[in-house]
């Protein structure tokens, strides 16, 4: 794979923005023909960044005659190193999906009817700018809420701040990793970020608590996980379901759902009582050990067995295995962690376990980020909001991270008008009826709005409630802000360059945001004309030029991933004590448990099972079900039921049933998978199916939507994270 990667597509597009059609010089690299494609035209390979999920692997897009004929891994990418998952390999399926949004759409029928007329960009943007100006005059800028996802959203994020609203919230916080970031930050003084820095390849023991690596595929994480296992790492998989990871595990602990904190406390008990913790590390770096030791004394494996249904002997055995393998124990912090509403405390328990094993900042544990300098733009001051945030971040949810926000807080505020009315939403790059639980509430909130705008590539579920739909170009057709990853052993900057011109009337997000800014007289917040200038400013302090980054796709920097790489003076922690806080003064101060405590989960009513959910390796969220190649491999999900449950329910494998939750909400029909590989008290669905948008012809109505069955949430009082494993299902009567 040594073909020269040309940059002319990127530069060509950049030039087009300034001066119309660009004269593109013929590149000098020799012709390359991808196999499977037998024409004679030159093929270029554009180095860019995947967006089939948020992991952002490096890819090479082979382009021939303006068409992307193949997407492969970029061997020069420091993180993914040429490897690419099923979704990444299916990237052209999104680019050439016939169901894509093609032109801006303006609503003509009633909201929810899904009737639109195609309009030009000028009309669409004039309409939107006019409405936003009016909105600001009548209700103040804070009445606009923004729901972003992914790094393409960042241009809009700038626009929102310039407009004057602080109300931006993405599901990646309150529906995903928020409590994890907060729990680890309370303990170590910093969150984990994305990708999470877990040293799986060097680990001697990997501990997965609900993480189902393998079904949950992030390429470089899977590479590291598999490498570690091949080198002999042991594996503990805590999961109510016999996951792919469980099938590789030395210990599969099929825990009673919702009792993980009890298991974690018992592990701490064994480590401390038997003196297996890393004493020198704790003495050097940690504070609050004695209080922790007192706290966990009563939480014996026997105590935990009664709660978790994991035999005490297994708890001791696995704790001792950790003690033996320390500090090279990778306690994976998980990713989607909003389960039961006590999730920040569970994340704290996992962080404390990591600390006891001396694994933070150590080889085979969790490694440390290395900062990368980056350039910033000379922008006017953003307007201060007098009314503050409406989502409760920093107030109602004292520890929520304001940069990420609380989506459900914004929905609450839209419904109640408290602390002030929210009148307009802009939703970017997500299927919010699948990504945020209680979708009926979301639809109800949309009903309160004066303006609902959706920016997306595909006609996702909430399109039918939109007043205006803006078709964005896919990741293969656009420039996005560079991906800057500090939480890697070799930190890196990667670029997303367009591999081809946007299809139909779609436009890149940066163009949409900038055009809108012009109409709102906010151009000063976008002080660059072309993507190349934008990238150049960010790269300025790195020593790398735009051309170099664009031709290689990514550039890496030396990292200092372990504490031992840093002089003792730099081995501090950004907490109040400057140490790892086993006992959290910050939590004590706000009246929360300073040491994690087990609280029993709400139990299923008689005849119901707890609904648990997860990922499949060929799909990302609810974003890929319409992709031809991926849909062919997994067109629908199945509901997993234990053999004895299926017998009790009188259902057989392959039969379609309708699930009904405790509130009487029914799913679309879904096939039954009868298996020994799940506990008898829960049912499992892969997330993202059962979509309701008819315009997604392959995805529509296939399988059951787990999210539609989430009528309840258990909200984490610290972060606002929505615990989602508190819903219960049974087979609906036919």
């Amino acid at each position: 794979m040594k073909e020269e990667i040309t940059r002319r597509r990127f530069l060509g597009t950049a030039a087009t923005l300034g001066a119309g059609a660009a004269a593109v010089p013929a590149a000098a690299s020799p012709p390359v023909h991808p196999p499977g494609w037998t024409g004679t035209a030159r093929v270029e390979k554009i180095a860019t960044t995947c967006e089939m999920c948020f992991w952002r692997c490096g890819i090479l897009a082979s382009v021939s005659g303006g068409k992307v004929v193949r997407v492969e891994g970029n061997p020069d990418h420091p993180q993914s190193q040429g490897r690419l998952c099923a979704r990444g390999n299916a990237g052209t399926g999104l680019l050439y999906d016939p169901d894509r949004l093609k032109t801006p759409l303006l609503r003509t029928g009633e909201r929810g009817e899904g009737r639109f007329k195609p309009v030009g960009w000028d009309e669409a943007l004039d309409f939107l700018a006019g409405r936003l100006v009016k909105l600001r005059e009548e209700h103040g800028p804070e009445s606009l809420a923004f729901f972003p996802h992914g790094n393409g959203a960042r241009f809009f994020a700038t626009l929102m701040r310039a407009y004057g609203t602080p109300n931006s919230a993405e599901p990646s916080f309150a529906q995903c990793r928020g409590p994890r970031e907060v729990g680890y930050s309370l303990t170590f003084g910093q969150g984990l970020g994305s990708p999470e820095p877990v040293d799986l390849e060097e680990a001697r023991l990997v501990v997965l608590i609900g993480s189902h690596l393998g079904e949950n595929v992030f390429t470089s994480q899977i590479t590291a996980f598999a490498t570690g296992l091949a080198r002999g790492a042991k594996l503990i998989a805590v999961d109510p379901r016999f996951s792919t990871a469980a099938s590789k595990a030395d210990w599969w602990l099929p825990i009673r759902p919702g009792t993980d904190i009890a298991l974690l406390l018992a592990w701490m008990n064994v480590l401390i009582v038997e003196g297996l913790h890393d004493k020198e590390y704790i003495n050097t770096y940690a504070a609050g050990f004695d209080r922790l030791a007192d706290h966990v004394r009563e939480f014996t494996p026997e105590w935990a067995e009664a709660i978790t249904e994991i035999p005490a002997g297994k708890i001791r055995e696995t704790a001792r295995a950790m003690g033996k393998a320390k500090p090279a124990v990778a306690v994976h912090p998980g990713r989607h962690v909003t389960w039961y509403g006590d999730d920040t405390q569970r994340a704290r328990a996992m962080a404390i376990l990591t600390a006891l094993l001396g694994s933070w900042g150590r080889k085979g544990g969790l490694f440390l980020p290395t900062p990368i300098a980056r350039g910033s733009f000379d922008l006017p001051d953003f307007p201060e909001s007098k009314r503050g945030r409406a989502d409760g971040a920093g107030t109602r949810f004292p520890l929520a991270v304001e940069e990420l926000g609380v989506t459900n807080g914004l929905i609450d505020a839209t419904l109640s008008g408290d602390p002030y009315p929210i009148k307009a939403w802009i939703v970017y790059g997500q299927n919010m009826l699948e990504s945020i639980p209680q979708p009926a509430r979301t639809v109800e909130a949309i009903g309160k709005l004066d303006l609902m705008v959706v920016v997306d590539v595909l006609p996702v579920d909430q399109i039918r409630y939109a007043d205006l739909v803006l078709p964005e170009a896919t990741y293969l057709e656009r420039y996005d802000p560079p991906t800057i990853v500090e939480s890697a052993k070799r930190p890196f900057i990667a670029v997303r360059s367009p591999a081809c011109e946007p299809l139909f009337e779609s436009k890149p997000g940066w163009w949409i945001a900038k055009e809108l800014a012009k109409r709102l007289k906010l151009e000063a917040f976008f002080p660059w004309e072309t993507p190349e200038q934008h990238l150049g400013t960010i790269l300025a302090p790195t020593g790398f030029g735009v051309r170099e980054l664009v031709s290689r796709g990514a550039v890496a920097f030396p990292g200092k991933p372990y504490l031992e790489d840093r002089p003792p003076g730099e081995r501090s922690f950004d907490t109040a004590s400057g140490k790892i806080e086993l006992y959290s003064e910050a939590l004590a101060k706000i009246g929360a448990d300073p040491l994690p405590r087990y609280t029993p989960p709400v139990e299923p009513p008689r005849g119901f099972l707890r609904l648990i959910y997860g990922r499949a390796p060929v799909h990302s969220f609810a974003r890929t079900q319409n992709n031809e190649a991926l849909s062919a491999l997994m067109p629908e999900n199945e509901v997993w039921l234990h053999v004895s449950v299926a017998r009790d329910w009188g259902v057989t494998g392959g039969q379609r049933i309708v699930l009904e939750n405790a509130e009487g909400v029914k799913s679309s029909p879904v096939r039954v998978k009868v298996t020994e590989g799940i506990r008898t008290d829960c049912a499992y669905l892969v997330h993202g199916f059962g979509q309701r948008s008819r315009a997604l012809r392959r995805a529509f109505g296939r399988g059951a939507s787990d999210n539609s069955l989430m009528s309840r949430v258990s909200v984490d009082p610290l972060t606002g994270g929505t615990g989602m494993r508190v819903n219960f299902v049974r087979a609906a009567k036919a």
Partner: protein
Amino acid sequence: MARYAMVTDLRKCVACQACTVACSAEWEVPAGHGRTHVRTTPLAGAFPNLMSSPHVGQCNQCDRPPCVEPCPSGATYQDAGGIVRVDGDLCIGCGFCVDACPYEARYINPRTKKVDKCDFCRPRIERGEEPACVATCTAGAKYFGDLEDRDSEVSRLVFREGARRMETRTVAVGPNVFYLGRAEHLDLVLSSFPPRPPRLLTAGEAWTKLLRPLVLVMVGATFAGQAVAFFTQLRKGEGDFEE
């Protein structure tokens, strides 16, 4: 002379299907078909003492490929590197080789009406690249190389690490796709997905699939020839008449 082989480490494989999709994208395999198949065995045991294993199937480029002989047109053959190939110009899409393959590695491409299967990405390896499935494998579980080269990674995995062939006593055709894994996992894979005994052509099938079309073609050709001769004669006759 090379003897190309592939090794899949099932301890690493997570059944993520990256290989399947990369392969299909590389070779324009129509959706719903595949040159590569990723499966997971049924669970063995009872809760909570369970076992299962992923498995990646593809053409095994067998030493004694049972697909070559049944091919009536000579399209399927084994090349000097041991790779079993299909000459698309010769293939008539009869599907005998599909039935003959013990590993269900062949399919008839509905677009081309020809048989298609894995050839270890021969054009890629000729360019010095890895097969697409090996290059993309998220778990780094796939290895490709030459068994004749004793220093190659696949030689090490096969001859020192004991990577196994998926063979049974009844079906032993020398597959060149090998697997690494715990013995009980490999046994489970083999018992879950055993190679199928090559199906021999029965007299009935021979008639319906091969002879009947052949006879029809021959009869058709005879009629066509007669017709051509007749009209040629007729035109000649007419010509004669006009003259």
